């Protein structure tokens, strides 16, 4: 059970798509990663607790990154750069410590999950996790599960709650919210999430907005339109042509 919900304790197989829209039991969105060698729920003295602490937020970030849409991604350029850098570093470190198969696993975990976790701390933890995975019998299964999680799109029937954004993780920002967007159960949490990540416009409620003028002025992206479900359409600097004025 490599992943465990920090709220209710439900566990998930590595690469499980069920987590992508939150815990089906309690709706929690924080999970801790438990490598096969560390299945004891009680924190071990020494390395065990630090492993859990540093890995859990990274997994949560990964889950968020895979289900969000265009708006959060606009802000994650620096995070992506961090992820790239960390990937390289982690790959090197892991290659020294483990087998080639484990290198693949560890690299992909880093690429998918890493955003803003401290590079050095996270790196050390992943090397540890890689060691455990290399000695366990589940390496192949985990590779497949993770490859599936990376490449597949979650089908709606795999999700406990219907969340339109989850099934289209890589679509552009101009996708519509659907006719019943306002009725979706996750709307409040979506708003919350967007507000946290996109502070130039805070959606207080339907038809109520608070604007951060300095943020609006400072950001290069230009918000073209707001959707009723709280999403934004923005024009990215890359789309601006020489004639756009």
């Amino acid at each position, binding site marked *: 059970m490599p992943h465990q919900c920090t709220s209710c304790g439900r566990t998930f197989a590595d690469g499980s798509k069920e987590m992508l829209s939150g815990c089906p039991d309690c709706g929690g969105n924080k999970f801790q990663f438990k490598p096969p060698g560390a299945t004891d729920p009680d924190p071990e003295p020494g390395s065990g607790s630090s492993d859990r602490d540093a890995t859990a937020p990274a997994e949560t970030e990964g889950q968020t990154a895979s289900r969000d849409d265009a708006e959060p991604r606009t802000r994650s350029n620096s995070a992506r750069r961090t992820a790239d850098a960390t990937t390289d570093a982690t790959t090197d470190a892991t290659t020294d410590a483990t087998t080639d198969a484990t290198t693949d696993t560890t690299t992909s975990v880093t690429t998918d999950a890493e955003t803003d976790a401290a590079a050095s701390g996270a790196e050390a933890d992943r090397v540890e996790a890689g060691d455990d995975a290399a000695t366990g019998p589940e390496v192949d299964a985990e590779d497949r599960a993770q490859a599936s999680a990376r490449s597949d799109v979650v089908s709606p029937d795999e999700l406990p709650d219907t969340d339109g954004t989850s099934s289209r993780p890589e679509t552009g920002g101009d996708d519509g919210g659907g006719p019943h967007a306002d009725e979706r159960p996750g709307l409040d949490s979506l708003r919350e999430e967007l507000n946290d990540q996109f502070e130039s416009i805070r959606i207080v409620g339907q038809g109520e*907005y608070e604007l951060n003028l300095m943020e609006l002025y400072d950001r290069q992206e230009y918000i073209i339109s707001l959707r009723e479900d709280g999403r934004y359409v923005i024009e990215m600097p890359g789309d601006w042509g020489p004639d756009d004025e």
Partner: protein
Amino acid sequence: MGLLTNLRDSVSRVTDRLFTDSEPKRIGIYGPPNAGKTTLANRIARDWTGDAVGPESHIPHETRRARRKEGVEIERNGRKVTIDIVDTPGVTTKVDYKEFLDHEMEKDDAVRRSREATEGVAEAMHWLREDVDGVIYVLDSTTDPFTQVNTMLIGIIESQDLPVLILANKTDLPESNVQRVANAFPQHETIPLSALEGENMDEVYDKIAEYFG
């Protein structure tokens, strides 16, 4: 051929910009909602081109998209100044659909107006960052000018080194207090006017020519 034509047009536009002194300055009309920005834009456009820029309304956030009137030629003292006027949506830090319900608007319309107004503020801030060469800042002289929005916008404009003309509008109303506006921004010249009645427009045009010519 189409590509070549586009390329040629782009090149000629760029060279025109580089070498033509008479490129019209793009002047943004900024200010809080209901200050009279569109009334002023229409006044200027009607006086010098005969056209209007957009509809005016006493309901806040009537202008929810920036509107541009290009090539407005203003003649002062035998000299012509050509400007592009950009009438921008009123800038505010809060938009609430409930304020529109007081104007006998249905809730759905009010919510939509609220959303569009918010987009409008984002657009206005974007224009300020990218696309204006000077600012006419319009204030309702019957209201308190010491607001977060005014302070922030004037600060941004100053940080951009943009020429700014502050207009104390609505002098036709008895509650008008031009001095209060002047006191709020002593570092800038404040021109009183009534865009609705056309009062003191001569001085406004003099100053436009002086600041943006």
